């Protein structure tokens, strides 16, 4: 088996025809991790022993003819998703020794399928960042060029799959944290519709934005993982009932917000984007230029709404109930010192920013204004989806950047999210699809093509995405 090319569908076939066992497959991945992860550092922890046990249990399911789509499939899990008894740290000193006391719903669903968990992957602390450099436990390198970042915040998950160290991985996406690393590592990355996948057991960052989704080698695999983890969950009151959005017929029309797409993007990335659009035209899709006049406000709106939600969500890390606790004379001291010692610089920056935009005297001009602008951005999408199946955009304005390039300039780092935050603000599903490479410093770097669909219309992403995937 060639782990660099293996897909879930091919592994499923081989496992079910007993070409190799789930234990063979898991052992091959563990070997690959031992060989490669010293350099890449995609994993914060590898669970070799339990992975082998899970693989053996999967082999029994297969032998009994009870194989499910993900039985025996070795997966990596982002470090902000809870697995009972396992450390889940969100790559933060705050939770360095925190052991989950329950399974996230997505994990229960994957366990029921007999999936194998290889380990937990590196990320930007509490999922804040676009490069995985904000991890408290060291950075992750891009397997395509180890002088570059894998993107973020789900950078460890992306690097693990891209380096053949996991067959697929779970990530979380608040403003592009699945799609942008997928783009930078040459993978398919899906952010489902807000409410499609339960967030029970996902550490919250921006609760009106967060979704869990898969990073995989191709679209068909993304669909398989999405089908396994989706669905209503009574433990997550924001998860949508299963028939909440009606099925939508395909119009075979793709919309392009030209004016928005052509600003602040690398020339060769834009050329590749246009070439991919032409492929869709050749495949029989109509391309339509569309006006979405409020899209340019997406990034500033996001950097009001997200920090506001971060500052409230992260109030729970106070050194009292769990996580890092610093000694002090009184309780106020414990709070302030624990939070200072537990949180990294970007997390602290966003907490301060969020505290400001929510503070009395400024909340109207910042937070409430941003909420209002978010509504008109959402309206832009609703208008667009009256006439198109998908809105197409690049995933990110450039390929993977070099390590350290943007760490000293928060605004340059935030600009990575310009195209991806749009879908989170509108709550609509979006996917990054590998669409070729551009060259930087003699290395070929992957670039993603992003499709965004209407609420509940992941089907359009998969159908049209598969056209993009065909060379």
């Amino acid at each position, binding site marked *: 088996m060639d782990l660099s090319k293996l897909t879930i569908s091919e592994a499923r076939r081989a496992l079910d025809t007993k070409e190799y066992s789930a234990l063979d497959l898991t052992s091959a991945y563990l070997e690959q991790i031992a060989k490669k992860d010293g350099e890449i550092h995609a994993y914060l922890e590898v669970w070799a022993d339990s992975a082998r046990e899970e693989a053996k249990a999967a082999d029994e399911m297969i032998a009994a003819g009870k194989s499910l789509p993900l039985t025996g499939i070795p997966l990596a899990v982002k470090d902000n998703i809870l697995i009972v008894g396992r450390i889940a740290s969100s790559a933060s000193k705050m939770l360095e020794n*925190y*052991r989950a*006391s*329950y399974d996230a719903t997505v994990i229960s669903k994957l366990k029921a399928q007999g999936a194998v968990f290889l380990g937990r992957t590196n990320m930007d602390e509490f999922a804040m960042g676009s490069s995985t450099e904000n991890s408290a436990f060291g950075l992750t390198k891009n397997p395509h060029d180890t002088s570059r970042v894998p993107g973020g915040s789900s950078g460890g998950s992306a690097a693990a799959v891209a380096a053949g160290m996991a067959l697929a991985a779970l990530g979380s996406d608040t403003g592009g944290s699945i799609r942008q690393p997928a783009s930078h590592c040459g993978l398919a990355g899906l952010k489902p519709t807000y409410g499609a996948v339960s967030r029970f057991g996902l550490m919250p960052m921006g609760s009106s934005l967060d979704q869990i989704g898969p990073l995989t080698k191709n679209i068909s695999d993304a669909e398989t993982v999405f089908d396994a983890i989706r669905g209503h969950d*009574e433990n997550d*009151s*924001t998860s949508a009932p299963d028939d909440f959005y009606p099925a939508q017929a395909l119009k075979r029309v793709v919309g392009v917000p030209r004016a928005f797409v052509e600003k602040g993007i690398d020339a060769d990335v834009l050329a590749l984007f246009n070439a991919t659009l032409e492929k869709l035209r050749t495949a029989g899709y109509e391309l339509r230029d569309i006006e979405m006049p*409020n899209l340019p*406000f997406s990034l*500033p*709106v996001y*950097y*009001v709404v997200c920090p506001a939600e971060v*500052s409230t969500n992260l*109030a729970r890390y*106070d*050194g*009292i*109930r*769990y*996580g*890092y*606790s610093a000694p*002090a*004379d*009184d*309780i*106020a*001291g*414990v709070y*302030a*010192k624990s*939070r*200072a010692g537990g*949180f990294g*610089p970007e997390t*602290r*920056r966003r*907490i*301060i*920013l969020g*505290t*400001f*935009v929510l*503070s009395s005297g*400024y909340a109207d*001009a*910042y937070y409430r*204004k*941003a909420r*209002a*602008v978010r*509504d*008109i951005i*959402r*309206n832009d999408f*609703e208008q667009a989806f009256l006439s198109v199946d998908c809105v197409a955009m690049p995933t990110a304005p450039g390929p993977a950047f070099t390590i350290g390039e943007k760490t000293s300039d*928060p*605004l340059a780092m*935030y600009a990575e999210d310009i195209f991806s935050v749009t879908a989170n603000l509108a709550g609509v599903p979006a996917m990054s699809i590998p669409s070729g490479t551009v060259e930087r410093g003699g290395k070929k770097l992957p670039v993603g093509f992003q499709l965004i669909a209407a609420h509940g219309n992941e089907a359009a992403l998969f159908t049209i995405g598969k056209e993009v995937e065909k060379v």
Partner: protein
Amino acid sequence: MTDKVDIGALAKLARLEVSPEEMKKLETEIPEILAFVDTIQKANVSAEAKVPELRNVMRADDNAIESGTYTKKILDAAPARDGDRVAVKQVISRKK
């Protein structure tokens, strides 16, 4: 829109101890980020914004979980405990 951002006051509100060096850094970074996000003031929201349909999610108002079911799990995660309680430092202290 903002002339001066009082980082010290914000840190206090956020219950976050900030070192003098970080304070200096944040005093330039936060206004820069705020100047960037301030572009939202240019958006025209006078057009009738459609409020997304909201739904209430309810459950029956009975005791879904028997008392004590998760006591051990919750206490195991706490940094300090005193019997079956999470132990905390003094909340109200005499002025020094």
